[in-house]
């Protein structure tokens, strides 16, 4: 990446903290609107609790509907947040600097949104505590650890704790900057308490850099396990033949990366438009993430293709019936067409052109399409799998989502947006210290008659550069 603007530390502080230290005019109306959507969704939930899950469209044979499709979608979005941050940190990709924080924060709020829906889905959320926390019951009955419904909370819980702490540790230097910038003594004290007295000694910086790398290395296997376990919710079920697939774990993971990296690209465009941070997130960054997306989308499409080939190759009638239902029967056929076109056939050819890759608007629209497609993918895996007609005619049925389910699903989207806006009001969405470090490592140097940014690897011990490599 040669597109580089050298900014002073003061300019970076001023640019990235302006919306925290002042209140933009649009902020309050936006937050109030999102809060209203959340309240509406929560009202729908309480209506459901009062009247029972009969108010949803869930009925035999479809007991998993919008809620579970939405759960898998948000778990997917949450994955790429940490994944993109962790992989780019581990490979020390320079273009990661302005986007890691937003991706990590999106992970945290997406995971919270993901946890909404299965909790709401069970109808009596307080009883979930029995599955998650193994406490001794009157009759000495313990949770069944052989059930995926115990694996799920252990994996998602680990991931939520890990990603929240990851965000917190990486925030310490930036909270210290805020402590030094705010004028109110009370808020200064709060930021001072939150940053734990960070001062910026060489030891603290070394540990910060190591924290990013070490936590990335630990969180990546958790990220892989979480979506594998979510996929096993389906793959280990006896009842639905179409879900018995060994490909589900990697297929779900690559699908999660596809939708999640796309969500990060959407977020980048929104940050540029809403906060006017084009000095920090440049066309080069969009170009880089679009190149990554081409690889991810193509790999995802390969797995999608394999799932179909392996399903049809063995000529088992339940598999063929399921594929027919997904691709050729009303109302799933048009949804299937939208899913395939939106997730692959429109965005990927566009990303092959440099002009498209470098345009925030095109990147926003194409990645939005990907996420519409990927939401439909989850819907098309779950609902037709359950709707497929079996031998028992009394077990035939279909699924129509009720208004209650739609409102609750919309609430999860509003919740993530609301959380991101609140976070961005009190803490920076672009890591200041990371951007500043990038400026230090990329000071301009002359090569012949051209002046270009130098770049060296961060985190190496100081004797490294004295050796002859």
């Amino acid at each position, binding site marked *: 990446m040669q597109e580089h603007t050298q900014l*002073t*530390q*003061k300019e970076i*502080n001023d640019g990235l903290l302006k919306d925290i230290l002042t209140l933009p005019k649009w902020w309050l109306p936006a937050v109030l609107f999102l809060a209203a959507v959340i309240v509406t969704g929560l009202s729908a939930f309480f209506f459901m609790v009062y009247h029972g899950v009969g108010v949803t469209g869930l009925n035999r044979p479809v007991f998993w509907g919008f809620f579970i499709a939405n759960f898998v979608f948000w778990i997917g979005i949450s994955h790429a947040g940490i994944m993109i941050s962790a992989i780019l940190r581990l490979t020390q990709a320079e273009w990661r600097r302005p986007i890691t924080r937003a991706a990590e924060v999106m992970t945290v709020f997406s995971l919270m949104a993901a946890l909404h829906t299965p909790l709401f889905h069970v109808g009596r959320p307080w009883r979930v505590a029995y599955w998650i926390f*193994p406490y*001794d019951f009157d009759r*000495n*009955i*313990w*949770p*069944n*650890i*052989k059930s995926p419904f115990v*694996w799920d909370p*252990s994996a998602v*819980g*680990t991931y939520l*704790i*890990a990603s929240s*702490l990851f965000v*917190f*540790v990486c925030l*310490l230097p930036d909270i*210290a*900057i805020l402590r*030094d*910038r705010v004028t109110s003594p009370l808020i200064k004290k709060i930021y001072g308490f939150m940053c*734990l*007295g*960070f*001062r*910026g*000694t*060489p*030891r*603290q*910086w*070394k*540990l*910060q*850099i*190591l*924290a990013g790398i*070490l*936590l990335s290395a*630990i969180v990546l296997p*958790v990220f892989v*396990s979480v979506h594998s*376990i979510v996929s096993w919710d389906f793959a280990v079920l006896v009842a639905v033949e179409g879900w018995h697939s060994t490909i589900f774990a990697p297929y779900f993971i690559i699908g999660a990366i596809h939708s999640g990296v796309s969500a990060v690209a959407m977020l980048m465009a929104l940050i540029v438009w809403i906060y006017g941070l084009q000095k920090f997130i440049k066309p080069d960054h969009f170009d880089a993430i679009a190149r990554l997306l081409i690889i991810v989308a193509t790999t995802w499409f390969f797995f999608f293709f394999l799932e179909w080939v392996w399903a049809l190759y063995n000529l088992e009638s339940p598999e063929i019936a399921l594929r027919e239902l997904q691709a050729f029967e009303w109302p799933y056929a048009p949804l299937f067409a939208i899913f395939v076109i939106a997730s692959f056939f429109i965005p990927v050819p566009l990303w092959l052109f440099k002009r498209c890759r470098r345009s925030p608007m095109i990147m926003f629209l194409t990645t939005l399409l990907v996420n519409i497609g990927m939401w439909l993918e989850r819907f098309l895996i779950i609902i037709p799998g359950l709707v497929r007609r079996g031998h028992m005619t009394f077990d035939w049925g279909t699924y129509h989502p009720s208004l209650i389910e739609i409102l609750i699903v919309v609430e999860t989207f509003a919740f993530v947006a609301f959380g991101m806006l609140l976070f961005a009001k009190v803490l920076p969405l672009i890591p200041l*210290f990371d951007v*500043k*470090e990038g*400026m*230090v490592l990329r000071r301009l140097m002359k090569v012949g008659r051209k002046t270009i940014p130098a770049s*060296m690897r*961060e985190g*190496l*011990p*100081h*004797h490294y550069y004295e050796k002859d490599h």
Partner: protein
Amino acid sequence: MTKRSVLGLYVEEDSAADALDNLRDAGFGEGEYEILTGTPYPEGTFGEAEPKHKLYRWPLVGAVCGFTGALIITAGTSLAYPLLTGGKPILSIPAMAIIMYEGSMLGAILLTIVGIIFESRLPRIFMGAYSEKITEGYIGVTVTTDESKTDAAEEALKKAGIDGDIIRGWKE
């Protein structure tokens, strides 16, 4: 003995490195002075000693603790209510392995976080001599030493060309 903390601010990296040289020449030890910056610099930029740490041990200890805890929970709960389900053994290794894996990772992450904070010498309640200009790009060199040596420290800091005046910190 009463200790005092003094701070000099520098605009250029070279001046801060000179200040450290001056402090060493004046007989100050590695534990008495520190560089404070608003951004990470490559190690050794100011000629400071390489910080030693034992961070890599923390996740290993955490993983062992997490694994043990998860083993106790999975095996213990299975044995506490030994109900055969789906023809699987009471202690079903594949199912237990999933929770033990997550337990190990959770333990590793929690202790890594504790390790990062501990090894960073945080939380720090008293800031000592500190300036908000450090997070604006100034490089601070702070000396925490006996009151009798502060004049020598100030002299060494000034000789490297500080920006503004010496900032003095707390007494203890």
